[in-house]
Protein backbone atom coordinates (compact mmCIF):
# COMPACT_ATOMS: atom_id res chain seq x y z
CA UNK A 1 0.00 0.00 0.00
CA UNK A 2 1.26 3.43 -0.77
CA UNK A 3 1.85 5.76 2.11
CA UNK A 4 0.33 3.91 5.08
CA UNK A 5 -0.47 6.22 7.98
CA UNK A 6 0.93 3.74 10.46
CA UNK A 7 3.38 0.98 9.74
CA UNK A 8 5.00 -1.62 11.91
CA UNK A 9 7.85 -3.78 10.59
CA UNK A 10 9.15 -6.91 12.16
CA UNK A 11 7.70 -6.00 15.53
CA UNK A 12 8.78 -8.44 18.18
CA UNK A 13 8.35 -8.52 21.94
CA UNK A 14 9.89 -11.08 24.23
CA UNK A 15 9.08 -11.58 27.89
CA UNK A 16 11.75 -13.88 29.21
CA UNK A 17 11.32 -17.06 27.27
CA UNK A 18 7.93 -16.11 25.91
CA UNK A 19 7.66 -14.41 22.55
CA UNK A 20 4.42 -12.49 22.65
CA UNK A 21 4.77 -10.76 19.32
CA UNK A 22 6.89 -12.36 16.65
CA UNK A 23 8.05 -10.40 13.64
CA UNK A 24 4.73 -8.77 12.85
CA UNK A 25 4.41 -6.50 9.83
CA UNK A 26 1.36 -4.33 9.87
CA UNK A 27 0.39 -1.44 7.63
CA UNK A 28 -2.63 0.72 8.29
CA UNK A 29 -4.24 2.59 5.44
CA UNK A 30 -5.34 6.15 6.02
CA UNK A 31 -9.03 6.42 6.82
CA UNK A 32 -9.73 2.70 7.19
CA UNK A 33 -11.03 0.67 10.05
CA UNK A 34 -8.61 -2.23 10.42
CA UNK A 35 -9.66 -5.14 12.53
CA UNK A 36 -7.11 -7.13 14.50
CA UNK A 37 -8.33 -10.49 15.67
CA UNK A 38 -6.92 -13.70 17.01
CA UNK A 39 -7.40 -16.17 19.85
CA UNK A 40 -6.59 -15.15 23.40
CA UNK A 41 -2.93 -14.68 24.01
CA UNK A 42 -2.21 -14.05 20.36
CA UNK A 43 -0.39 -10.85 21.18
CA UNK A 44 -2.89 -8.28 19.94
CA UNK A 45 -2.91 -6.03 22.98
CA UNK A 46 0.83 -6.33 23.24
CA UNK A 47 1.15 -5.19 19.66
CA UNK A 48 -0.95 -2.15 20.49
CA UNK A 49 1.25 -1.37 23.44
CA UNK A 50 4.35 -1.57 21.27
CA UNK A 51 2.89 0.82 18.75
CA UNK A 52 1.62 3.25 21.37
CA UNK A 53 4.95 3.38 23.17
CA UNK A 54 3.70 1.84 26.37
CA UNK A 55 6.27 -0.91 25.87
CA UNK A 56 9.48 -0.93 23.93
CA UNK A 57 9.76 -3.60 21.23
CA UNK A 58 12.50 -6.19 21.52
CA UNK A 59 12.96 -5.79 17.80
CA UNK A 60 11.31 -4.09 14.87
CA UNK A 61 10.21 -0.58 14.07
CA UNK A 62 7.12 1.57 13.95
CA UNK A 63 6.60 4.49 11.61
CA UNK A 64 3.84 7.07 11.74
CA UNK A 65 3.29 9.15 8.64
CA UNK A 66 6.62 7.94 7.41
CA UNK A 67 8.52 9.03 10.48
CA UNK A 68 9.94 6.52 12.93
CA UNK A 69 8.38 6.54 16.38
CA UNK A 70 9.96 3.34 17.67
CA UNK A 71 11.07 3.58 21.26
CA UNK A 72 9.55 6.97 21.92
CA UNK A 73 7.63 7.45 25.12
CA UNK A 74 3.89 6.96 25.31
CA UNK A 75 3.20 10.63 25.83
CA UNK A 76 5.32 11.60 22.83
CA UNK A 77 3.45 9.21 20.62
CA UNK A 78 0.09 10.46 21.83
CA UNK A 79 1.15 14.01 21.10
CA UNK A 80 2.30 12.89 17.67
CA UNK A 81 -1.21 11.67 16.94
CA UNK A 82 -1.59 8.02 17.87
CA UNK A 83 -3.95 7.37 20.78
CA UNK A 84 -4.76 4.09 22.47
CA UNK A 85 -7.54 2.93 24.77
CA UNK A 86 -7.06 0.38 27.51
CA UNK A 87 -8.57 -3.06 27.44
CA UNK A 88 -9.30 -2.84 31.16
CA UNK A 89 -10.69 0.63 31.54
CA UNK A 90 -8.61 3.10 33.52
CA UNK A 91 -10.65 6.16 34.30
CA UNK A 92 -9.36 8.79 36.68
CA UNK A 93 -11.67 7.75 39.44
CA UNK A 94 -11.67 10.87 41.49
CA UNK A 95 -12.50 13.13 38.59
CA UNK A 96 -15.76 13.75 36.82
CA UNK A 97 -16.43 12.37 33.37
CA UNK A 98 -15.81 15.79 31.88
CA UNK A 99 -12.55 16.29 33.75
CA UNK A 100 -11.34 12.92 32.55
CA UNK A 101 -11.84 13.95 28.97
CA UNK A 102 -10.38 17.38 29.57
CA UNK A 103 -7.08 15.77 30.43
CA UNK A 104 -7.04 14.33 26.95
CA UNK A 105 -8.09 17.65 25.45
CA UNK A 106 -5.39 19.59 27.28
CA UNK A 107 -2.56 17.26 26.46
CA UNK A 108 -3.03 15.66 23.13
CA UNK A 109 -1.96 16.41 19.63
CA UNK A 110 -1.08 20.01 18.88
CA UNK A 111 -2.45 22.56 18.39
CA UNK A 112 -3.90 22.31 21.89
CA UNK A 113 -6.85 24.35 23.14
CA UNK A 114 -5.69 27.39 25.02
CA UNK A 115 -7.36 27.95 28.30
CA UNK A 116 -9.82 26.02 30.33
CA UNK A 117 -12.93 27.15 28.48
CA UNK A 118 -11.65 25.92 25.13
CA UNK A 119 -10.47 22.64 26.58
CA UNK A 120 -13.86 22.20 28.14
CA UNK A 121 -15.55 22.84 24.81
CA UNK A 122 -13.28 20.33 23.08
CA UNK A 123 -13.99 17.78 25.80
CA UNK A 124 -17.73 18.32 25.54
CA UNK A 125 -17.48 17.77 21.83
CA UNK A 126 -15.77 14.44 22.33
CA UNK A 127 -18.34 13.52 24.94
CA UNK A 128 -21.17 14.42 22.60
CA UNK A 129 -19.78 12.20 19.87
CA UNK A 130 -19.57 9.39 22.40
CA UNK A 131 -23.05 10.10 23.73
CA UNK A 132 -21.82 10.82 27.23
CA UNK A 133 -22.52 14.54 27.29
CA UNK A 134 -25.41 14.13 29.71
CA UNK A 135 -23.10 12.46 32.23
CA UNK A 136 -20.42 15.13 31.99
CA UNK A 137 -20.64 16.24 35.62
CA UNK A 138 -20.97 12.79 37.10
CA UNK A 139 -18.06 11.18 38.90
CA UNK A 140 -16.26 8.85 36.54
CA UNK A 141 -16.66 5.92 38.87
CA UNK A 142 -20.47 6.14 38.67
CA UNK A 143 -20.62 4.94 35.07
CA UNK A 144 -21.74 1.53 33.90
CA UNK A 145 -19.32 -0.68 32.05
CA UNK A 146 -20.63 0.51 28.70
CA UNK A 147 -20.27 4.07 29.91
CA UNK A 148 -16.71 3.40 31.00
CA UNK A 149 -15.84 2.01 27.64
CA UNK A 150 -17.23 5.08 25.96
CA UNK A 151 -15.34 7.28 28.38
CA UNK A 152 -12.12 5.54 27.38
CA UNK A 153 -12.91 6.31 23.78
CA UNK A 154 -13.97 9.90 24.47
CA UNK A 155 -10.80 10.57 26.41
CA UNK A 156 -8.59 9.19 23.68
CA UNK A 157 -10.62 10.99 21.05
CA UNK A 158 -10.11 14.28 22.85
CA UNK A 159 -6.39 14.02 22.18
CA UNK A 160 -7.16 14.69 18.52
CA UNK A 161 -5.56 11.51 17.18
CA UNK A 162 -4.94 10.72 13.56
CA UNK A 163 -4.93 7.04 14.44
CA UNK A 164 -7.01 5.59 17.23
CA UNK A 165 -6.19 2.15 18.61
CA UNK A 166 -9.23 0.61 20.24
CA UNK A 167 -8.46 -2.33 22.50
CA UNK A 168 -11.49 -4.58 22.89
CA UNK A 169 -13.99 -1.79 23.34
CA UNK A 170 -16.83 -4.24 22.78
CA UNK A 171 -15.81 -6.70 25.48
CA UNK A 172 -18.52 -7.23 28.03
CA UNK A 173 -21.22 -5.28 26.19
CA UNK A 174 -24.67 -6.61 25.40
CA UNK A 175 -25.92 -6.56 21.78
CA UNK A 176 -27.58 -3.15 22.06
CA UNK A 177 -24.54 -1.54 23.59
CA UNK A 178 -22.38 -3.28 21.02
CA UNK A 179 -24.35 -1.83 18.15
CA UNK A 180 -24.25 1.61 19.70
CA UNK A 181 -20.49 1.43 20.07
CA UNK A 182 -20.06 0.26 16.50
CA UNK A 183 -22.06 3.27 15.38
CA UNK A 184 -19.70 5.38 17.41
CA UNK A 185 -16.69 3.79 15.76
CA UNK A 186 -18.10 4.52 12.34
CA UNK A 187 -18.86 8.10 13.35
CA UNK A 188 -15.30 8.59 14.50
CA UNK A 189 -14.00 7.29 11.24
CA UNK A 190 -16.34 9.65 9.39
CA UNK A 191 -14.66 12.51 11.18
CA UNK A 192 -11.38 11.54 9.63
CA UNK A 193 -9.70 9.33 12.21
CA UNK A 194 -8.10 6.06 11.17
CA UNK A 195 -9.04 3.22 13.46
CA UNK A 196 -7.47 -0.09 14.39
CA UNK A 197 -9.65 -2.33 16.56
CA UNK A 198 -8.64 -5.38 18.51
CA UNK A 199 -11.76 -7.47 18.92
CA UNK A 200 -13.11 -10.86 19.77
CA UNK A 201 -16.59 -10.22 18.47
CA UNK A 202 -16.15 -11.55 14.95
CA UNK A 203 -19.58 -10.58 13.70
CA UNK A 204 -19.08 -7.00 14.79
CA UNK A 205 -15.69 -6.89 13.20
CA UNK A 206 -16.99 -8.19 9.91
CA UNK A 207 -19.66 -5.52 9.89
CA UNK A 208 -17.50 -2.48 10.49
CA UNK A 209 -13.96 -3.21 9.32
CA UNK A 210 -12.69 -2.65 5.84
CA UNK A 211 -9.82 -5.08 6.38
CA UNK A 212 -8.95 -7.66 8.98
CA UNK A 213 -5.58 -8.98 10.12
CA UNK A 214 -5.28 -12.15 12.15
CA UNK A 215 -2.68 -12.78 14.82
CA UNK A 216 -2.03 -16.29 16.10
CA UNK A 217 0.62 -16.94 18.75
CA UNK A 218 2.36 -13.68 18.01
CA UNK A 219 2.51 -14.03 14.26
CA UNK A 220 0.37 -12.46 11.60
CA UNK A 221 -1.25 -15.31 9.79
CA UNK A 222 -3.50 -13.75 7.23
CA UNK A 223 -4.83 -10.37 6.31
CA UNK A 224 -7.31 -8.92 3.86
CA UNK A 225 -10.98 -8.66 3.07
CA UNK A 226 -13.16 -9.52 6.08
CA UNK A 227 -15.23 -12.25 4.48
CA UNK A 228 -12.21 -13.93 2.95
CA UNK A 229 -10.24 -13.80 6.16
CA UNK A 230 -13.02 -15.07 8.37
CA UNK A 231 -13.60 -18.10 6.22
CA UNK A 232 -9.90 -18.81 5.77
CA UNK A 233 -9.12 -22.28 7.08
CA UNK A 234 -6.17 -21.13 9.13
CA UNK A 235 -8.33 -18.68 11.01
CA UNK A 236 -11.05 -21.22 11.65
CA UNK A 237 -8.43 -23.65 12.91
CA UNK A 238 -6.90 -21.07 15.17
CA UNK A 239 -10.19 -20.30 16.86
CA UNK A 240 -11.63 -23.77 16.98
CA UNK A 241 -8.46 -25.78 17.27
CA UNK A 242 -7.26 -28.19 14.65
CA UNK A 243 -8.56 -31.73 14.71
CA UNK A 244 -5.88 -34.26 15.50
CA UNK A 245 -4.63 -35.86 12.37
Amino acid sequence: MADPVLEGRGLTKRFGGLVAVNGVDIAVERGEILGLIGPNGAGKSTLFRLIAGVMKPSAGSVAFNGRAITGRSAHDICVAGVAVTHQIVRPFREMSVLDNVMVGAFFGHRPRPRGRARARAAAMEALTVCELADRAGAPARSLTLAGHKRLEIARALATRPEVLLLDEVLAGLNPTETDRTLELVRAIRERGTTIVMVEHNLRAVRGVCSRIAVLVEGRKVVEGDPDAVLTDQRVVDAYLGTAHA
Partner: protein
Amino acid sequence: MSYGLALIYGVLKIINLANAGFLMLGAYLTWWLFTAYHVHPLLAPLIIVPLFFLGGWALERTLVRRVLGAEPIISLLLLFGVWLVLQNLAYVIWTGDTRSIETAFVDATVALGGLTLSVPRIYVFVMGALVLVALQLFLTRTFLGRAIRATAQDRDAARLVGVDVDRVMGIAFGIGIALAGFGGSLLSLLFSFTPDFGRALSLKSFCIVVLGGLDSIVGVAFGSLALALAEAFGVRYMPASLQNLISFVVLVVVLIALPKGIVGTLRALRRG
Protein backbone atom coordinates in the same frame (compact mmCIF):
# COMPACT_ATOMS: atom_id res chain seq x y z
CA MET B 1 30.88 -9.04 58.59
CA SER B 2 28.54 -6.48 57.32
CA TYR B 3 27.28 -9.10 54.94
CA GLY B 4 25.54 -10.76 57.82
CA LEU B 5 23.99 -7.52 58.87
CA ALA B 6 22.96 -6.75 55.36
CA LEU B 7 21.37 -10.16 55.09
CA ILE B 8 19.15 -9.36 57.98
CA TYR B 9 18.09 -6.07 56.51
CA GLY B 10 17.34 -7.83 53.29
CA VAL B 11 15.30 -10.47 55.00
CA LEU B 12 13.15 -7.86 56.64
CA LYS B 13 12.47 -6.32 53.30
CA ILE B 14 11.52 -9.46 51.54
CA ILE B 15 8.70 -10.34 53.82
CA ASN B 16 7.44 -6.82 53.73
CA LEU B 17 7.41 -6.92 50.01
CA ALA B 18 5.59 -10.17 50.19
CA ASN B 19 2.89 -8.09 51.75
CA ALA B 20 2.65 -5.95 48.68
CA GLY B 21 4.39 -2.81 49.65
CA PHE B 22 4.23 -2.45 53.42
CA LEU B 23 7.63 -1.06 53.84
CA MET B 24 8.20 0.81 57.03
CA LEU B 25 8.11 -2.11 59.37
CA GLY B 26 11.68 -3.20 59.72
CA ALA B 27 12.76 0.03 61.30
CA TYR B 28 10.35 0.43 64.15
CA LEU B 29 10.81 -2.95 65.62
CA THR B 30 14.52 -3.08 65.86
CA TRP B 31 14.63 -0.50 68.55
CA TRP B 32 11.77 -2.01 70.43
CA LEU B 33 14.22 -4.49 71.60
CA PHE B 34 15.49 -2.06 74.14
CA THR B 35 13.30 -3.52 76.74
CA ALA B 36 13.92 -7.20 76.22
CA TYR B 37 17.57 -6.52 76.06
CA HIS B 38 17.86 -5.24 79.47
CA VAL B 39 16.91 -8.74 80.38
CA HIS B 40 18.95 -11.44 78.65
CA PRO B 41 20.64 -10.83 75.30
CA LEU B 42 20.93 -14.17 73.58
CA LEU B 43 17.72 -15.64 74.87
CA ALA B 44 15.65 -12.57 74.22
CA PRO B 45 14.61 -13.70 70.76
CA LEU B 46 12.78 -16.58 72.34
CA ILE B 47 10.46 -14.05 73.86
CA ILE B 48 10.62 -11.48 71.16
CA VAL B 49 9.87 -13.58 68.14
CA PRO B 50 6.56 -15.01 69.31
CA LEU B 51 5.56 -11.73 70.91
CA PHE B 52 6.21 -9.76 67.80
CA PHE B 53 4.54 -12.35 65.67
CA LEU B 54 1.39 -11.88 67.68
CA GLY B 55 1.80 -8.13 67.61
CA GLY B 56 2.20 -8.10 63.87
CA TRP B 57 -0.73 -10.37 63.39
CA ALA B 58 -2.88 -8.20 65.61
CA LEU B 59 -1.76 -5.07 63.85
CA GLU B 60 -2.73 -6.53 60.54
CA ARG B 61 -6.15 -7.57 61.72
CA THR B 62 -7.05 -4.30 63.32
CA LEU B 63 -5.47 -1.56 61.29
CA VAL B 64 -3.79 -2.73 58.18
CA ARG B 65 -6.75 -4.63 56.92
CA ARG B 66 -8.84 -1.52 56.80
CA VAL B 67 -6.64 0.21 54.33
CA LEU B 68 -5.97 -2.69 52.04
CA GLY B 69 -8.34 -1.46 49.41
CA ALA B 70 -6.89 2.02 49.14
CA GLU B 71 -3.83 3.21 47.30
CA PRO B 72 -0.55 1.80 48.55
CA ILE B 73 0.47 5.19 49.80
CA ILE B 74 -2.25 4.97 52.43
CA SER B 75 -0.83 1.83 53.94
CA LEU B 76 2.58 3.41 53.84
CA LEU B 77 1.26 6.38 55.75
CA LEU B 78 -0.45 4.10 58.22
CA LEU B 79 2.70 2.18 58.96
CA PHE B 80 4.59 5.41 59.07
CA GLY B 81 2.17 6.59 61.71
CA VAL B 82 2.68 3.41 63.66
CA TRP B 83 6.39 3.93 63.42
CA LEU B 84 6.09 7.50 64.65
CA VAL B 85 4.09 6.36 67.62
CA LEU B 86 6.52 3.62 68.52
CA GLN B 87 9.60 5.70 68.05
CA ASN B 88 8.33 8.54 70.15
CA LEU B 89 6.91 6.21 72.73
CA ALA B 90 10.43 4.90 73.02
CA TYR B 91 11.75 8.40 73.44
CA VAL B 92 9.23 9.08 76.11
CA ILE B 93 9.83 5.85 77.99
CA TRP B 94 13.53 5.38 77.59
CA THR B 95 14.71 8.85 76.57
CA GLY B 96 17.08 9.51 73.75
CA ASP B 97 20.12 8.28 75.63
CA THR B 98 22.26 5.82 73.81
CA ARG B 99 21.92 2.32 75.13
CA SER B 100 23.98 -0.73 74.55
CA ILE B 101 24.27 -4.25 75.78
CA GLU B 102 27.28 -4.94 77.92
CA THR B 103 28.00 -8.54 78.55
CA ALA B 104 30.98 -10.81 78.18
CA PHE B 105 29.58 -12.20 75.01
CA VAL B 106 29.53 -8.87 73.31
CA ASP B 107 33.21 -8.32 73.81
CA ALA B 108 34.32 -11.83 73.09
CA THR B 109 36.73 -12.42 70.28
CA VAL B 110 38.20 -15.48 68.75
CA ALA B 111 41.48 -15.92 66.93
CA LEU B 112 41.21 -17.61 63.59
CA GLY B 113 44.15 -18.01 61.30
CA GLY B 114 45.84 -14.78 62.22
CA LEU B 115 42.66 -12.72 62.28
CA THR B 116 40.86 -11.64 65.39
CA LEU B 117 37.19 -12.04 64.81
CA SER B 118 34.49 -10.70 67.01
CA VAL B 119 32.25 -13.47 68.25
CA PRO B 120 29.02 -11.51 68.12
CA ARG B 121 29.65 -10.67 64.49
CA ILE B 122 30.16 -14.28 63.62
CA TYR B 123 27.04 -15.15 65.52
CA VAL B 124 25.01 -12.51 63.75
CA PHE B 125 26.36 -13.54 60.38
CA VAL B 126 25.55 -17.18 60.97
CA MET B 127 22.11 -16.43 62.33
CA GLY B 128 21.44 -14.11 59.46
CA ALA B 129 22.39 -16.73 56.93
CA LEU B 130 20.36 -19.38 58.71
CA VAL B 131 17.30 -17.21 58.78
CA LEU B 132 17.66 -16.42 55.12
CA VAL B 133 17.96 -20.05 54.18
CA ALA B 134 15.09 -21.03 56.48
CA LEU B 135 12.96 -18.32 54.96
CA GLN B 136 13.75 -19.40 51.44
CA LEU B 137 12.85 -22.99 52.30
CA PHE B 138 9.69 -21.89 54.02
CA LEU B 139 8.53 -19.78 51.14
CA THR B 140 9.25 -22.36 48.50
CA ARG B 141 8.73 -25.70 50.13
CA THR B 142 5.87 -25.35 52.53
CA PHE B 143 2.24 -24.89 51.65
CA LEU B 144 1.91 -21.85 53.84
CA GLY B 145 4.97 -20.32 52.30
CA ARG B 146 3.62 -20.74 48.84
CA ALA B 147 0.27 -19.44 49.94
CA ILE B 148 2.00 -16.29 51.12
CA ARG B 149 3.77 -15.82 47.83
CA ALA B 150 0.58 -16.42 45.93
CA THR B 151 -1.29 -13.86 47.98
CA ALA B 152 1.48 -11.36 47.47
CA GLN B 153 1.20 -11.73 43.74
CA ASP B 154 -2.53 -11.75 43.30
CA ARG B 155 -4.93 -11.75 46.18
CA ASP B 156 -8.02 -12.63 44.21
CA ALA B 157 -6.41 -15.44 42.32
CA ALA B 158 -5.16 -16.85 45.58
CA ARG B 159 -8.68 -16.77 46.97
CA LEU B 160 -9.93 -18.60 43.94
CA VAL B 161 -7.58 -21.48 44.50
CA GLY B 162 -8.64 -21.84 48.07
CA VAL B 163 -6.16 -19.81 50.04
CA ASP B 164 -7.60 -18.26 53.17
CA VAL B 165 -6.29 -14.84 52.30
CA ASP B 166 -7.24 -13.19 55.57
CA ARG B 167 -5.40 -15.71 57.64
CA VAL B 168 -2.41 -15.65 55.33
CA MET B 169 -2.07 -11.89 55.46
CA GLY B 170 -2.16 -11.92 59.21
CA ILE B 171 0.46 -14.61 59.38
CA ALA B 172 2.71 -13.04 56.80
CA PHE B 173 2.59 -9.75 58.58
CA GLY B 174 3.28 -11.45 61.86
CA ILE B 175 6.29 -13.19 60.37
CA GLY B 176 7.56 -9.94 58.97
CA ILE B 177 7.37 -8.18 62.27
CA ALA B 178 8.79 -11.12 64.14
CA LEU B 179 11.75 -11.16 61.78
CA ALA B 180 12.23 -7.46 62.22
CA GLY B 181 12.25 -7.93 65.94
CA PHE B 182 14.69 -10.76 65.67
CA GLY B 183 16.90 -8.70 63.43
CA GLY B 184 16.93 -5.83 65.82
CA SER B 185 17.67 -8.21 68.61
CA LEU B 186 20.73 -9.47 66.82
CA LEU B 187 21.86 -6.00 65.92
CA SER B 188 21.67 -4.80 69.46
CA LEU B 189 24.54 -7.15 70.16
CA LEU B 190 26.72 -5.21 67.82
CA PHE B 191 25.68 -1.61 68.10
CA SER B 192 24.58 0.84 70.67
CA PHE B 193 21.24 2.32 69.89
CA THR B 194 18.79 5.14 70.35
CA PRO B 195 15.17 5.27 69.29
CA ASP B 196 16.39 6.56 65.97
CA PHE B 197 18.05 3.27 65.24
CA GLY B 198 15.60 1.99 62.73
CA ARG B 199 15.80 4.74 60.24
CA ALA B 200 19.26 4.27 58.82
CA LEU B 201 18.65 0.57 58.69
CA SER B 202 15.44 0.80 56.79
CA LEU B 203 17.19 2.93 54.25
CA LYS B 204 19.87 0.31 53.86
CA SER B 205 17.42 -2.51 53.49
CA PHE B 206 15.58 -0.51 50.92
CA CYS B 207 18.83 0.03 49.13
CA ILE B 208 19.50 -3.68 49.15
CA VAL B 209 16.15 -4.39 47.63
CA VAL B 210 16.66 -1.90 44.86
CA LEU B 211 20.12 -3.26 44.18
CA GLY B 212 18.97 -6.82 44.11
CA GLY B 213 15.70 -6.38 42.29
CA LEU B 214 12.42 -6.65 44.03
CA ASP B 215 11.35 -10.22 43.67
CA SER B 216 13.66 -12.81 44.97
CA ILE B 217 15.58 -13.87 48.00
CA VAL B 218 18.53 -14.54 45.79
CA GLY B 219 18.27 -10.96 44.69
CA VAL B 220 18.27 -9.83 48.28
CA ALA B 221 21.34 -11.88 49.06
CA PHE B 222 23.01 -10.43 46.04
CA GLY B 223 21.99 -6.92 46.98
CA SER B 224 23.26 -7.39 50.50
CA LEU B 225 26.59 -8.51 49.23
CA ALA B 226 26.82 -5.62 46.83
CA LEU B 227 26.02 -3.13 49.54
CA ALA B 228 28.43 -4.72 51.99
CA LEU B 229 31.18 -4.52 49.42
CA ALA B 230 30.39 -0.93 48.65
CA GLU B 231 30.49 -0.07 52.31
CA ALA B 232 33.70 -1.92 52.94
CA PHE B 233 35.18 -0.06 50.06
CA GLY B 234 33.85 3.23 51.29
CA VAL B 235 35.24 2.79 54.76
CA ARG B 236 38.70 3.35 53.42
CA TYR B 237 37.93 6.63 51.80
CA MET B 238 35.23 8.32 53.74
CA PRO B 239 34.98 9.65 57.26
CA ALA B 240 32.91 7.45 59.51
CA SER B 241 29.99 9.81 59.79
CA LEU B 242 29.42 9.64 56.09
CA GLN B 243 29.09 5.88 56.11
CA ASN B 244 25.36 6.01 55.86
CA LEU B 245 25.66 8.12 52.81
CA ILE B 246 27.31 5.32 50.94
CA SER B 247 24.20 3.25 50.64
CA PHE B 248 22.34 6.30 49.54
CA VAL B 249 24.86 7.26 46.90
CA VAL B 250 24.91 3.73 45.57
CA LEU B 251 21.15 3.80 45.47
CA VAL B 252 21.05 6.98 43.44
CA VAL B 253 23.68 5.77 41.01
CA VAL B 254 21.97 2.45 40.50
CA LEU B 255 18.61 4.08 40.00
CA ILE B 256 19.94 6.36 37.35
CA ALA B 257 21.82 3.66 35.54
CA LEU B 258 19.73 0.56 36.06
CA PRO B 259 16.07 1.09 36.83
CA LYS B 260 15.42 -2.57 37.33
CA GLY B 261 18.09 -3.15 39.89
CA ILE B 262 21.18 -5.15 39.18
CA VAL B 263 19.56 -8.54 39.20
CA GLY B 264 16.66 -7.38 37.11
CA THR B 265 18.99 -5.94 34.52
CA LEU B 266 21.06 -9.08 34.42
CA ARG B 267 17.95 -11.12 33.89
CA ALA B 268 16.75 -8.89 31.11
CA LEU B 269 20.11 -9.10 29.41
CA ARG B 270 20.08 -12.85 29.60
CA ARG B 271 16.68 -13.02 27.97
CA GLY B 272 17.72 -10.74 25.18
